[in-house]
């Protein structure tokens, strides 16, 4: 371990309580999306940067959804590493939670709050990593850029996508490191691609007792939900190296340990979620309309072009139904080299910190890192366990957070080399 790395780890050990407090404060600035207003949390991050002498640029094409960028250079030229996280989080159905979803409560070694996994743990980590590395920049080569964006949870137009369209030069680098949840046992190098559709069922309707006079839009919608499950059985043609990697029992076991039992099994298969189902006016009226929103995740080796006709055929069996696509615009499952340099740097850093070497993984959800991959920038993700992401009482183990912070710092320091 180089002297600057030891110095960084010592700084992190000494500021342990402040690191935890910073994460807690970030959780206490609600930023649910919808509606997507991240101003309070963004202001909190901006203050931290300014106080460290790193006044950021802020771009808010949508006034409630600011995007923050800050950069510094080491004394010598070198490579350019970009750090990325998003500020918005999923919404909350408060009655489902036992703890305050915006409280940042600490109990039993865990910290609770909406966004803890996804992704304020990783966001706090890259923010503090950026500040710590800035403090030792005389030992670094090249450039480090920090990007904290809005509008990610709905893959909307005002966050990273806007930044790539309008401030592309600020976003691009030689490599991207993201703090999205991967679990500390895994490093994410690729992701599945979502396709989202809305299905609308219509029938005549009428009085609830007159079931002989009209079909039921809700009963038909229920049958469509069952029929859509067929997409999960479609055959997939994935690249050989990926197929081999995920068939390795040891790798699959560690993936399941980190990301949840069953995760490895679903990397190579399409999955179906029925995210919303809504229809009918009153209990005693035959419903004349019902709407379904479905979320399908395509593995590497399957494209939206392939699956669209399959969906069309399934839905065509129900003449009362029509459908439209709601998906974010980009189309292709994406991945970086599972044996690339930054992957190895991260794996070695984790080992040096005394934890098990993480395995490469393709996670099931999509992130903004895809935008860097489309631009040809290798992108890797290391962050918290995704186990309670989007659920009630979302939480992160504090020891994991502190470990992730150390990993981000070490990996960035090693990537940028030392003077």
């Amino acid at each position, binding site marked *: 371990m180089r002297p600057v790395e030891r110095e960084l780890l010592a700084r992190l050990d000494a500021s342990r309580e402040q690191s935890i407090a910073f994460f807690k404060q970030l959780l206490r600035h609600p930023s649910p999306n919808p509606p997507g207003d991240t101003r309070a949390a963004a202001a909190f991050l901006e203050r931290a940067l300014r106080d460290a002498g790193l006044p950021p640029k802020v771009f808010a094409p949508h006034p409630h959804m600011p995007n923050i960028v800050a950069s510094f250079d080491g004394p010598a030229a070198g490579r350019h590493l970009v750090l990325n996280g998003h500020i918005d989080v999923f919404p909350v159905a408060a009655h489902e939670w036992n703890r305050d979803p915006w409280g940042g409560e600490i109990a039993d070694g865990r910290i609770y709050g909406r966004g803890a996994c996804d992704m304020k743990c990783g966001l706090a980590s890259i923010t503090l990593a950026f500040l710590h590395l800035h403090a030792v920049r005389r030992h670094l080569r090249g450039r480090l850029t920090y990007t904290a964006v809005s509008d990610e949870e709905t893959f909307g137009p005002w966050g990273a996508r806007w930044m790539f369209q309008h401030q592309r030069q600020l976003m691009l680098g030689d490599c991207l490191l993201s703090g999205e949840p991967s679990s500390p046992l895994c490093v994410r190098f690729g992701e599945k691609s979502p396709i989202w559709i809305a299905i609308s069922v219509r029938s005549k309707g009428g009085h609830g007792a007159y079931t002989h006079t009209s079909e039921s839009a809700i*009963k038909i919608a229920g049958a469509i939900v069952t029929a859509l499950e067929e997409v999960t059985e479609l055959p997939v043609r994935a690249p050989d190296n990926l197929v081999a990697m995920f068939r390795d029992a040891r790798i699959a076991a560690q993936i399941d340990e980190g990301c949840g039992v069953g995760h490895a099994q679903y990397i190579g298969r399409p999955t179906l979620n029925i995210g919303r*189902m809504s229809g009918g006016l009153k209990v005693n009226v035959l419903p004349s309309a019902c709407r379904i929103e479905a979320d399908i995740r395509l593995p590497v080796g399957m494209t939206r072009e392939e699956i669209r006709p399959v969906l069309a055929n399934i839905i065509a069996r129900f003449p009362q139904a029509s459908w439209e696509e709601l998906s974010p615009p980009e189309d292709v499952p994406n991945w970086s080299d599972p044996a690339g340099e930054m992957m190895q740097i991260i794996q070695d850093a984790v080992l040096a910190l005394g934890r098990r070497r993480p395995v490469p993984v393709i996670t099931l959800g999509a992130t903004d890192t895809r935008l860097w991959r489309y631009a040809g920038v290798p992108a890797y993700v290391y962050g918290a366990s995704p186990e309670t992401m*989007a659920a009630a009482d979302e939480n992160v183990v504090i020891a994991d957070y502190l470990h992730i912070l150390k990993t981000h710092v070490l990996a960035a320091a090693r990537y940028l080399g030392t003077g």
Partner: protein
Amino acid sequence: MRATKSDLLAAIDRDRDEIIAFLSGFVQAKSPNPPGDTRGAIGYLTRFLEAEDLPFRLLAPEPTMPNIIGTFEGGAGRGRHLVLNGHVDVFPVDATERWAYDPWSGAIAEGKIWGRGVADMKAGTSASVFTYRYLYRVRATLKGKLTLTCVSDEETFGPWGARWLIEHEPEVLGDCCLNGEPSSPLTVRFGEKAPLWLRVTVRTAGAHGAYTHASASATKLAAEIIQQLETLTGIPTPAPPAVAKALAEGTAAMEAAMGGGAARIAQQVTLNIGRIEGGLKVNMIPGVCTFEADVRLPLGYEKEHVLPHIRAILARYPQATLEEITATKPCWCDPFGPMMGIIRANVKALRGFEPSPAVSLGGTDARLWRQRGIPAYVYGPFPTGMGSKDEAVMIDDYLHVVRTHVLSAFDYLTS
């Protein structure tokens, strides 16, 4: 027919324009339920009753939902007590639907009267009001008593209308009840199926939309449960013998009145899923999904006949909970009782055919009398547009219902 019945028919013919205009104005007195405020519609009726000098009083345990009760005695001695019943609240209107005529217009056009509530059931309630008026004028020749009840709070089976009157005012009980809910002129209803309304809530952990292995899906489970609940409709429910005989007689008329398939489902358990709501966002596995089920029980079968079947299905889904929203017992009265015979004979004389006894698929306030052992019969117009758009009643049908009610009440109180 005796002379007095001819006089009654002649009076109805003479007053034809007034009777038609009355219903048109009644429809214009908006009374959607929800919210159920009927003060305008009740006021329309009380002004009429006052102008006609007819005895009545108002009872309003819920001030926005008043009820009219009026009674007079015949002058020809002791006899039977007939109660006329009709509700004045109507279904609401879906603002996104485009009607041929404004739903609150009471428009008179194309041989019909148009508007929300005209069939369900302002035509029938108007028939009750005119029956009360015409019989009051000839009360000297009547035996027994006639009571008029015009009530609120029926469309949601609420507590402030007929239910309240029956529980608190013995005056409304009587020996028989006549009601003008839409039965179509082809049938006389002697019984009705009963609603059992349930709410099922499915709760799961919920998760990110891509993590289908991490949490069961509340929406997928709800869809499965709904498909399994359909088996309710296969539970055998053979009709009690008297009912079976009446249904056999009434099959053709029921099909014509309520749509092909009506006679079969009259004696079957039916299931409607009226509402479903689940999930927050397309890309989250939902943690909650709720749906409301409207089960209709056929004559002779109470909720205990289907609840074990429902519970057995839900037992396979520990994430699901069941709540009962409302339940009533289906009930009926004698499909061949005296008033049924009177009505059938009058319609035969007026229109040349005999209406058949039939079972109502939907619920009415008539059940409240039948539950106390008081026979109640329903005869009214076609239910055209009931609960959807372009509700309307043919003028000829409306006048026929008025005539039938007037003559039948007269027969009941003179024989």
